[in-house]
């Protein structure tokens, strides 16, 4: 029997006290870390590794990060490497972009991606397009990172999902990780990449624990940008998702298994460049497709994925039209019930799967 006592402290840092009375020994516990730890570690390691890397943003230094994502970094690395800014997204995103053009490798944190709209001219016009416009002469090795999408009860202006806005733009790489391993490997890869990268985190996942291998904890662990992962194999239907969408895919798959339906779950990891091959291969195997995202439906990731499948030879393997599960086409409400019902839930995924499979 296990007794667990948790004490949660505010400001996003969690302190867990655990007292365990166990008769049967737990299997050699798999190591776990939170998304927060994964991201902090990745930044710490890259800042240590390459003196050109620095972190800039609101509250990143003395406050340890608005969501504590840079905890301990200012104490360790100092003012030069961890730079606090006033509230001026256009100012510091532009400054960081200029610094990247001059050869430094900034990590520019947006407190949330909603505020990136203040600076979006620099993300797109100054950063994304410059390598092309200069015919390859001027690189912009910058990472824009921060939480994207809905949090809990923060209202419409603080809850937008920018995945598709950014993934539309040539010149950017756009990453939307799910697990701690995704975050570690892909953030390190993003910082080492010479292109501007938009790294979309999710605030609701920051405190979540994920198992992590020793290999993934090593200092040079990088994952390839542009490659998805099969999180779960299955033969009846393909579920494609990214970031927090995967959470409901896993739960839906578990429930559907009891009805004898095996779901294959594809974790995109990167939105641009999109890993078309992994989706096509899965669809050719299962013949059925549901896309799952928390963003709005019009011009969403689901639209793009389904269009690409239809344009490819994988179309001939479909036994039913694909379906999209998305957030509701509405600015996100504040009231809890409205908010929850505006976002995709497990029953939505299950209903879509059963509809396609005629069950």
């Amino acid at each position, binding site marked *: 029997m296990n007794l667990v006592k948790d004490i949660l402290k505010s400001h996003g840092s969690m302190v867990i006290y655990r007292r365990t009375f166990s008769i049967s020994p737990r299997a050699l516990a798999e190591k776990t870390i939170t998304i927060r730890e994964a991201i902090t570690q990745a930044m710490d390691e890259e800042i240590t590794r390459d003196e050109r890397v*620095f972190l800039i943003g609101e509250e990143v230094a003395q406050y340890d990060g608005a969501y504590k994502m840079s905890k301990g970094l200012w104490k360790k690395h100092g003012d*030069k490497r961890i730079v606090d800014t006033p509230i*001026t997204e*256009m*100012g*510091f*995103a*532009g*400054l*960081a*972009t*200029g*610094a*990247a*053009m*001059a*050869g*430094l490798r900034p990590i520019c944190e947006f407190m949330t991606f909603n505020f990136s709209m203040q600076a979006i*001219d*620099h993300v797109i*016009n*100054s950063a994304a397009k*410059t390598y*092309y*416009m*200069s*015919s*390859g*002469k*001027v690189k912009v090795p910058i990472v824009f990172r921060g939480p994207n999408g809905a949090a809990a009860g923060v209202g419409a202006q603080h809850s937008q999902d920018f995945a598709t806005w950014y993934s539309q733009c040539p010149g950017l790489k756009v990453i939307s990780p799910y697990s701690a391993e995704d975050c570690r490997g892909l953030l390190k890869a993003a910082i080492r990449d010479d292109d501007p990268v938009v790294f979309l985190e999710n605030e609701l996942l920051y405190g979540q624990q994920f198992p992590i291998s020793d290999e993934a904890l090593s200092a040079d662990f990088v994952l390839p940008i542009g490659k998805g992962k099969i999180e779960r194999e299955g033969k009846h239907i393909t579920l494609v998702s990214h970031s927090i969408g995967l959470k409901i895919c896993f739960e839906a798959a578990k429930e559907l298994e009891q009805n004898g339906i095996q779901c294959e779950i594809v974790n995109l990891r990167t939105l641009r460049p999109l890993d078309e091959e992994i989706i096509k291969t899965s669809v050719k195997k299962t013949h059925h497709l549901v896309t799952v995202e928390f963003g709005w439906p019009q011009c969403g990731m689901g639209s793009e994925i389904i269009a690409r499948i239809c344009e490819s030879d994988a179309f001939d393997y479909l036994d039913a039209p694909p379906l999209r599960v998305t957030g509701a086409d509405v600015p996100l409400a504040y009231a809890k019930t409205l908010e929850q019902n505006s976002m995709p839930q497990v029953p939505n995924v299950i209903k879509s799967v059963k509809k396609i499979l005629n069950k």
Partner: protein
Amino acid sequence: MVLQRKFEERAGQLYGQQKIKGFCHLYIGQEACSSGAKSALKDGDKYITAYRDHGIPLALGSDPNTVMAELFGKATGISKGKGGSMHIFDKSVGFVGGHGIVGAQIPMGAGLAFAEKYNKTGNLAICYFGDGAKTTDMPWERR
């Protein structure tokens, strides 16, 4: 300065004849700004401006043939025809563009200076902007 003036007069003429497409913002009358800076600054200093960007690289020593070719969208242009009039870049002389959005060059110029300070080079960054840019958010955010 004479090179800049003659170059721009010719570019203006060709633009009027519609042989240069899109936009063409001439540096006529401002030659002293680029040449004066060049005479006072040194190799290693950085320059950035908005889209009135033909004069500065010429003052710094960029090959005028490649700048003119860029206005014609040729592959031999300084940005291989992919930038056009507003996106001249020449890192070899410290010129970091060539930007289309009014005022955007201001925080980016601060970024160039930030990098020089970070690397302790002692180099300067000079950022050109006009009366249009002075009223955008960007100079005020920079304070």
